């Protein structure tokens, strides 16, 4: 995993949201194969969008509180927050360009 990606838990999630203007949180689990397909894409984006978008990863298996709070019922789900306000999430594996375009539209 890229050094630019922050591993989040139920406990530090809110702090991460409050302290970054534009955020993508990848809600994933180890057994989820599409999540594993998404991982290298987010690694690349975390490098390319460094300083513009903060990217975090939250393991839903170990952190059920956040998945329950945001009604996550499919993984991977990418939660997006702008200035602390939740935007339309991205559900499922998406091509890198689609994710990048969506994030750029929020800048």
């Amino acid at each position, binding site marked *: 995993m890229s050094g630019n990606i922050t591993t989040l838990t139920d406990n530090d999630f809110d702090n991460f949201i409050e302290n970054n203007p534009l955020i993508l949180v990848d809600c994933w689990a180890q057994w989820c194969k599409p999540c*594993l397909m998404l991982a290298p894409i987010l690694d690349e984006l975390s490098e390319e969008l460094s300083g513009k978008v903060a990217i975090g990863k939250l393991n839903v298996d170990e952190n059920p509180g956040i998945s329950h709070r945001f009604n996550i019922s499919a993984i991977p789900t990418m939660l997006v927050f702008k200035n602390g306000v939740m935007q339309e999430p991205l559900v499922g594996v998406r091509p890198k360009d689609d994710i990048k375009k969506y994030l750029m539209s929020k800048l």
Partner: protein
Amino acid sequence: MNYDVVIVGMGAAGLQAAIAASRKKAKTLVLGKHEDSALYWAEVENYFGVRRVEGKEMLAIGMEQASSFGAELMEEDVIELAKGDAGFKVVSDSGKEFTAKALVFASGISRKKLKIPGEKELFGKGVSYCSSCDCNFYKNVPVAIVGTGSEAAISAELMTHYASHVYWVAKEMEASDNLRDKALAAGAELVTAEPTEIGGKEKVSSLILANGKSLEVNGVFIELGARSTTDMAMDLGVMPDPEGTIKVDRKCSVGVDGIYACGDITGKPWQVPKAVGEGGIAGAEAATYARGL
């Protein structure tokens, strides 16, 4: 049964791979259902040396050709692939096990959308395409599995361990007796009907059927067709891209020793000439690899 080369998929790419591998004297098995090939319903007019031909006819001739060179053809879906001591372990939907020194993925691109109202709108809000990913979110609530093949059967069985009730909605039955019986024995309720709409506003609340009935469910798992090859490929260390395609080099190798891919699964263009070209390469390379061990 032990083989040099096992080919997953019985379309143009898989059958050409079988022709190439068996002509190189590799003991070759093709697994898949030729009627599931995208070519089956197509009419081809852009193939060199052929004016116009129905896909069904091309497949029938291809199957005869592959058999004539010694390849064995078995109309069964693959449901499990694993690395073994002597190459790869392959399990079919009837429960048969095989070993292969080399594998060729030629199973095409899965077209998984049901295309009914509510599917797109409620994706991620109760609609899922991956029961093994999302099963944990549906503990003790009723769900429906939609699909007629092996993927649906496997999902229906899996979800009986999580959901309070599992409806398996299939307008017809294409899964093997083996997988169907496992799902039903685990407690899934088979509903022979066609789904027409997924109901719900913020979340899925029902699955509406063509016969007018409605199933009250919190989740709808759309699991069409055979078990996804890209899913199984990941068990062998092959990483597909987000579109579900597998990248290959000029030898149609996927970058893992003994594994090759050809046809639509390697990406566009989804055309017979490209599938056949890659099939010829993949089959020959797989045979060379297997016989060199």
